[in-house]
């Protein structure tokens, strides 16, 4: 087995799980922080096994996105050993929030005092990918500029309507 590079496999897995490619994930600049968090919450051993599994899936299906998705779904997302972690990897990228792992995951392994619902950090907050996914921006950060909110959003089919609100009130 070739040597395992945790960051590389974390990004490989994250890309399949989130639907954001590795370049987009790296742009967020918080991969290392999330990887460290994951290791802190789930421990070295389990994480290492997860990276090994990811590496094996990638080695088997280089350049086949649909097959990668299928394999990740079967071998990781639907595998009780990894499922909760994999879901949290999706959530941490999208929301920049770490969600407490479910009791059926924690029970056999013992609770970790750090494992609480929390925004990962003030630095990670603006990098939540959900905002990018919906063509918006995180409240309080990365503003789109004066009057950008008045413009037709990317992906809206209808042409920008010309109507402007008129002042009117009271009885007809």
């Amino acid at each position, binding site marked *: 087995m070739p040597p395992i590079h945790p960051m590389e496999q974390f990004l490989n897995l994250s890309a*399949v*799980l*989130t*639907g*954001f490619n590795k370049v987009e994930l790296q742009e967020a600049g918080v991969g290392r922080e999330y990887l460290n968090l994951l290791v802190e919450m789930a421990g070295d051993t389990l994480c290492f096994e997860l990276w090994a599994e990811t590496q094996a899936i990638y080695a088997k299906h280089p350049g086949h996105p649909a097959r990668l*998705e299928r394999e*990740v779904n079967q071998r990781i*997302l639907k595998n009780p050993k990894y499922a909760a972690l*994999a*879901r949290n990897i*999706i*959530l941490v990228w*999208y*929301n920049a*929030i770490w*969600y407490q792992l479910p009791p059926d995951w924690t029970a056999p392994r013992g609770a970790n005092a750090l494992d609480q*619902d*929390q*925004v990962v*950090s*003030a*630095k990670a*907050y*603006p990098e939540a990918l*959900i*905002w990018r*996914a*919906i*063509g*918006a*921006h995180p*409240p*309080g*950060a990365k*503003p*789109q*500029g*004066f*009057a*950008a*909110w*008045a*413009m*037709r*959003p990317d*992906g*809206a089919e*209808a042409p*920008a*309507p010309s*109507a*402007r*609100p*008129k*002042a*009117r*009130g*009271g*009885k*007809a």
Partner: protein
Amino acid sequence: MSQQNLVPLATPLREHYDVVIVGAGIAGALIAKRLAAKGNHVLILEAGRSTSVTPDGYQSYVENFYAALAKGTNAPYPENPNAPTSLTEIGPLPFGSNYVRAKGGTTMHWLGISLRMCPNDFRMKSLYGVGVDWPFGYDEMSDYYGQAELVVGVSADVEDQAYHGIHFPKGYVYPMHKVPVSYLDQVTSQRLNGMRFKFGQETYDISLTSVPQARNSMPNAKYDGGKGYRPVGAAGNPEHGRRCEGNSSCIPICPVQAKYSALKTLAAIPASHCHILTQAVASQVTLDGNGRVSGIQYKVYQDESSGQHTVHTARGTLYVIAAHAIETARLLLASPNVCRGSGELGRNLMDHPMPVAWGLMPQNIGACRGPGTTSGIESLRDGEFRRQFAAFRMDYSNWGWQFATGSPYSDVTAAVAKGAFGKKLRDHLASTLPRQLFIDFLLEQLPDPGNTVTVNPQNVDPLGNPAPLINYDIDEYTRKGFVNAFKFKDALFKRLGVKDCTAGQPMFSAPVECDGQMFYYYGAGHVVGTHRMGSAASESVVNLKQRAWEHDNLYLAGCGNMRTIATSNPTLTMAALSLWAADNIQTDLEKRRRA
């Protein structure tokens, strides 16, 4: 900036000021600035911190907001046990609103909506037989409204705002053009075009109207007879925040200070004439033998995690309590024999109970972008139906369902829990979330003497100051308003083709039963009415000049002076009243100097 206004605690204060003001929020700041400009020496006592006065301090608020899991109205502003805002509820319904005790006051987290009251709002009793009339009308307020629109810097177009009899002097323009309305406003406005709605025998034209807001937009070159207007930037950093950048976080904090806060007014007061003392909690208004105020006793603390403090007294010719409707009532009630004559002190507490609704538009409307709201439906702010039930205004939110459901985070967790991942998850979120429409209603409440702020001397904070007790209820008049607002919601959603997704109890809301149905409401933070003004000492706490009936050197300022809440967000009206109070105080000072 106002570093210079911040008197270090060690510095001896003046023995005597022309005016001592309690509260470094908008009312206190506006009064202090106007009086300092006339050469008076002013002291402001502020219970909370001065964190916001340095760029680093302000940025720490922004970072607190980033790091907070629950991004509520006070998420940026840390709890301060020595200036607490936790309310003890003793009434039938929860009071859903809070406020900020820190330099800048509640304008730190307000949205910035700056509506005028409608002329009929001042005459509810004589027109509709409910509530009370004000001792003056819209025409007397009009000039002060204009002044308030300047000092807080309002962006709006006069032609949009002249409805329900609201009128402006010939040639008047707001300092800045209206904040451009959002894409979702534009889409829905087109669909609303021509909508009518029937309440009782009356049919009302329904339209969407841009909302005036204290947020920097494009300056209007026609302002002030062609002199124009220069947008006011961040306090202490004036090149910053001179235009709204669309940070979409007006509540709880504008990172660039394009939204007005009292910090801007405070920063503009010359330090030579205004001392601002922070971490100085007014604890008692003391009287001399003639019933005149002899001083404000205040407690200074260094460390907010300890109740250790020193006690001091500030003295002046005149005194102004401008500490927020709840805190002003609390302070006066903690002061023996102050403002007790009418029995009205602490009564008539009002807010806008705010039910919300949400759904999905058929198309992408670009949710979650821009200021909190840019348009509202003002059509039902007034009408004959007010004889029977509460009027209301309705805002569109530009922020999707965030407020009620925790969207978009909750939408991600829900989809992932169902097994979604990868490209499909991303596509699902991208195709649904930008369609989110969210509305809220601000329902008027009538003054009810049973809605009260009281104090219990046994129930004290670490400094020994009694905490406010709130007894709050929503009467039948407003409950009927809930029912009718939701009838309107149904018609609106049908008209817009919205799939109604309103279900269950929205996060952090409170239930209220109306006509056998369960509704949910939030407080709007529009806290009004605890020390109302009036033309008779028997039924009000302050007179027309906003001076306490019983103490001729004591003025009260803030939303507590308002006799009714009507449907407009109250800050602009309160700002106008505060400027008026400042003029009255100036006249009073001049008269005393002559005497």
